[in-house]
């Protein structure tokens, strides 16, 4: 018994050295079945992942078609309400509509070098639409629901074979549609990039540079008086907070006469912001302030 080998030989002989035959085949079958059901489960998981993503895609697609129609409005309805006190917060419906009749107006510092000509300060991607988007986002942050129309107006012009002055006709279609669908809209802004030189389009406040704003009102539209009052209110509010940021209210007739679609709403104003030499950052600083001004006015007029 001192010998290890004897000990192990004994041990080996002690117990049945083979499992029962029935057990061996039964276990093999069990394993086969389990392997099969695992495979089925995997296929099922794969299938359900694929089918649910197809469903989600179909839903989004139909949602886009249903809400946007042929106008291709990509509406961002910011309706993050809350129990807080302000006017806008009580409303879940959009109160501000932002659009761009000249959506490709851009900024030279944001463009690649080969586009650095004055007449070429246009871009299909890096353009004034980003500024409107930022304004919409900032409004959302302070619980003012808005709709930002990102329609590629210039693209539609090209598609339909129209000319640049027809931009307002194109942007008008969506504006009319949105106003008809949302009687909650209280303010309408057509945001453009101004064409002033940098020294006129920029102002330094507390060490930071901001793009300046001009409010343009069409003299030839039926709502001229109310639009002018609204524009003046915006200008004065800005003057109070950041003197010099607003250049003022400009009355235009347009050549040929243009209403800038302002007859469609009482509080409709065309914004000219910054210039081709401004950066998006300078623009965004201004929209930040402007968003707060809008909220103040909405609360006051409640």
């Amino acid at each position, binding site marked *: 018994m001192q010998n290890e080998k004897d000990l192990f030989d004994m041990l080996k002989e002690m117990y049945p050295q083979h*499992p029962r035959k029935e*057990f061996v085949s039964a276990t093999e079958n*069990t*394993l*086969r079945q389990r*392997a099969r059901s*695992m*495979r089925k489960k995997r296929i099922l998981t794969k299938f359900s992942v694929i089918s649910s993503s197809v469903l989600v895609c179909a839903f989004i697609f139909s949602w886009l078609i249903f809400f946007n129609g042929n106008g291709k409005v990509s509406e961002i309805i910011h309706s993050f309400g809350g129990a807080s006190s302000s006017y806008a917060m009580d409303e879940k419906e959009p109160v501000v509509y932002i659009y761009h009749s000249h959506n490709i107006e851009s900024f030279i510092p944001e463009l690649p070098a080969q586009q650095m000509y004055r007449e070429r300060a246009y871009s299909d991607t890096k353009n004034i639409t980003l500024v409107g988007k930022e304004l919409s986002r900032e409004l959302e942050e302070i619980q003012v629901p808005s709709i930002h129309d990102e329609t590629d107006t210039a693209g539609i012009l090209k598609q339909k074979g129209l000319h640049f002055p027809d931009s307002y006709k194109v942007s008008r279609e969506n504006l009319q549609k949105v106003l008809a669908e949302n009687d909650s809209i209280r303010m309408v802004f057509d945001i453009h990039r101004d064409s002033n030189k940098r020294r006129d389009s920029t102002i330094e406040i507390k060490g930071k540079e901001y793009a300046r704003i001009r409010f343009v009102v069409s003299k030839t539209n039926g709502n001229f008086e109310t639009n002018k009052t609204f524009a003046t209110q915006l200008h004065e509010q800005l003057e109070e907070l950041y003197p010099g940021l607003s250049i003022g209210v400009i009355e235009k007739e347009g050549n040929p006469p243009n209403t800038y679609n302002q007859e469609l709403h009482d509080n409709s104003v065309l914004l000219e912001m910054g210039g081709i030499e401004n950066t998006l950052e300078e623009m965004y600083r201004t929209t930040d302030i402007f968003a707060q001004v809008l909220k103040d006015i909405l609360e006051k007029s409640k």
Partner: protein
Amino acid sequence: MIDSNNLESRIVEIYNLYYLDVYRFLVCFTGNQNDAEDLTQEVFIRVLKGVSNFDGKYNLKTWIFSIAKHVAIDHYRKKRFTSLFKDGFFNQLSSNEKKPDEEFEVTELKLLIHDAIAKLKPNYRAVVILRGINEFSIIETSEILQCSEVKVKVDYHRALKELKRKLNIEIEGVLTNAK
């Protein structure tokens, strides 16, 4: 990564290669054919679940045995306070058909060894069986038990020493009683 289409054939192949080794380890560990069969099945079900993630960093056989060792120790913990271990052993022995006196001698000795093994703590038991019965090398054993080679050597020697000491005491005891 194993293609799920091949999973079935893959697990059957693995099972047929290794079930006997796994069973022998477990039958020595538990001392009971029924338990050993149940646990063998349990081991291969765990292998099936893990095989698609098995990355080949380890040897397949030592990987399977590390599962078997876990299954065996889990089983030991569950049965710790029950006497099923012994009962199973007695039932099995009584089914052997041999001549009465011969049977008695063999049975007596087997019982001693069985008891001595059963009294070893589970880690020692695993080392002894892996090295002695399954004839794994020291390196393989250290992979299965996930410890150093030195620990395998030390544990193996201590376990054997304890086993022999127990057996000698028991045998002496039996002889004394017989006188």
